[in-house]
């Protein structure tokens, strides 16, 4: 029962905040809140990887970038020139393409957002497996640097390719119609539905991850984090567990990238850069490495403050300072005590 308490609190808080913004006519707060929900998706995935499986990743913004850029590129690239190509014609027959008109009225051909989303996720899984297998054999500094290197390569590729819009990124990304009447887009009219969609997704993922952590898989992960050799000796295939966790966290980051790109209507190389990756790590650290809810709460707070410009020109400096202070004084994170343990203690006193 107490295990589901944080989740219920989250859902209540989400609804409460929305009603509050309606009551005080401050509906514009929903925009940074929605963006924050998507960033939190990356953060909880990273928390699973770093805190529970014990693998550091300094390049997770790279996966966010892969998801975001691929879906952006596929939904904006005009395929009219390739209309005769066999593969494109096949996609058209399968209903994967959208016939539209560009801004000058000339007909154009782009990929359906759903098809683009699936493509992006599949590519992410492939890349995560391809990178994960060699990277996870490394330890310590080498692992950190390999992930950092991965993040930088994604950033450099995005920056160097005209296909990905080089330094300016991609704009004009259309909305993502999920169901009739529900689309992921930045239009003012669909703001409330997008808010609930984003936080709903996050709540669902928290529920999934919560179940994962309390299952056999979760215990295996914690065992690996604690003592890998011993776990191996017990017959658990540590390599496979680490790899799957890595891929799962990559997919979460990628999905966040896809949805946020459709919400913002675009993406730029800074989303895949080192500073973003460092930010994610900072938030996981401050929330407590192995504390999903801590990471979520801290992530929400810090991202909202950053998005609203509260840190001004000191934005990066704030995250750098947080990193140092937390790591020096509170390596278990600010919310080192897990929420459920605190709740349990309170309940126990009542008994």
């Amino acid at each position, binding site marked *: 029962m107490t295990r589901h308490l944080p989740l219920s609190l989250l859902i209540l808080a989400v609804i409460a905040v929305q009603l509050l913004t309606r009551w005080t006519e*401050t*509906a*514009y707060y929903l*925009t*940074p809140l929605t*963006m924050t929900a998507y960033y939190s998706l990356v953060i909880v995935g990273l928390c699973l990887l770093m805190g529970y499986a014990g693998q550091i990743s300094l390049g997770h913004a790279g996966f966010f970038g892969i998801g975001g850029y691929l879906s952006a590129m596929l939904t904006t690239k005009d395929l009219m020139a390739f209309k005769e190509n066999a593969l494109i014609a096949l996609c058209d027959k399968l209903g994967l393409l959208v016939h539209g008109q560009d*801004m*000058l009225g000339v007909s154009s051909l782009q990929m359906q957002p759903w098809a683009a989303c699936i493509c992006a996720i599949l590519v992410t899984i492939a890349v995560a497996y391809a990178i994960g297998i060699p990277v996870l054999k490394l330890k310590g500094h080498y692992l950190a640097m390999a992930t950092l290197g991965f993040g930088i390569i994604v950033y450099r590729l995005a*920056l*160097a390719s*005209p296909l990905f*819009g*080089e*330094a*300016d*990124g991609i*704009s*004009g990304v259309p909305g993502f119609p999920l169901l009739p009447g529900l689309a992921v887009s*930045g*239009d*003012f009219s669909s703001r409330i539905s997008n808010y609930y969609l984003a936080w709903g997704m996050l709540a669902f993922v928290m529920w999934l991850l919560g179940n994962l952590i309390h299952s056999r898989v979760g215990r295996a992960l914690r065992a690996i984090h604690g003592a890998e050799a011993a776990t191996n000796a017990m017959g658990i295939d540590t390599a496979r567990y680490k790899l799957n966790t890595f891929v799962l966290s990559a997919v979460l980051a990628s999905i966040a990238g896809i949805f946020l790109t459709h919400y*913002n*209507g*675009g*993406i*730029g190389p*800074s*989303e895949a850069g080192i500073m973003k990756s460092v930010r994610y790590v900072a938030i996981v650290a401050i929330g407590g490495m192995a504390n999903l809810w801590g990471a979520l709460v801290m992530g929400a707070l810090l991202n909202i403050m950053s*998005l*609203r*410009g509260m840190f*001004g*020109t000191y*934005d990066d400096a704030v995250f750098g300072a947080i990193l140092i202070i937390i790591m020096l004084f509170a390596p278990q994170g600010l919310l080192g005590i897990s929420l459920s343990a605190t709740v349990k203690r309170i309940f126990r006193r009542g008994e």
Partner: protein
Amino acid sequence: MKRSFTATIIMFAASLALSVSMACAETIKIGAILAISGPASFLGAPEARTLEMLAEELNAKGGVGGNKIELVIKDSGGNPEKAISFAKQLIEEDKVFAIIGPSTSGETMKIKKICEDGKTILMSCAAAEQIVNPVAKYVFKTPQKDSQVVHAIFENMKANKITKIAVLASNTGFGQAGKGQIEKQAPEAGIQVVAAEVYDSKATDLSAIVAKLAADKEIQAVINWSIEPAQAIVLKNARQAGWKVPIYQSHGFGNIKYVEAAGAAAEGVIFPAGRLLIADKLADKNPQKAVLVKYTKDYETKFKEEVSTFGGHAYDAFKILCRGIELAGANREKVRDAIENIKGFVGTAGIFNFSPADHNGLGFDSVTMLTVKGGNFVEYKK
């Protein structure tokens, strides 16, 4: 009886006067999204300083039409997602009348639709053609068009009988737009682009690529298109490698700091720019001279650094916006229409002639060819 009657009349008159004056003294909020920190800080920082200076000056004179201006400046750091977030915040929460900026084309393109949907005037300080083509009713830009700048360079090359060139562009939107225009216009100008390379905006050494290009003896001139400090590196590396061909730069060279960074290697560089950089050398009868000299003097006195064309773009944006408000009052649609009909407005980048189809307003004559002599900008004379 009589005294209290008089008192009431006075109080009534006073409160009437107060309410009337309060109705008149509304502040007009103008937002600005600029890249004050981060990789585009060379653009955003002077832009922000210029805006602050102008707003202060205007408010000291009582504002525009009796309304004071309140500036709300946000630092996007050159990040598009921050630009989006701030744009939405400025439009919905601060309910700004208009937004000046952003500093880069990438950020502008991301918020173009948001401003259009939010019916908020956007005066962009970025150069990309797509900002005003296709025209969005509320979106304007103040820097010159790339196509015109490239045209000016090609005219100069034709006069100097240059037919084979190499292009070096930085990997930013500005660099890529320029490279695109160069490659597009080259055939009709009778010029062949023998080699085209893209360098990282944060590059610290380009001697390898310079060596490669210098080895090709066919290349008669180089166009170096960038707005970052790395453009100075190209100059240094080229001259140090003993490569003596004429080097042309873009209008992104318009800051004396780049000349200082390149030192003696900047001598003889040819580039098109607005006349702001040679303000004091203009003939007195030049229509722009008065405006340019005043801005230069005010900026340099206040901030102890030299003017740049980037600050000038913010100057133009602010002044044009205020002119629109002067003409049409504080009504968005009317101001937008008013701006569209402004003709002959003297700005730092040139003389603006807007129209419903042209939301940039600058023509070929807005740029003139400049060169560097003795560490200073001077007009190019054959």
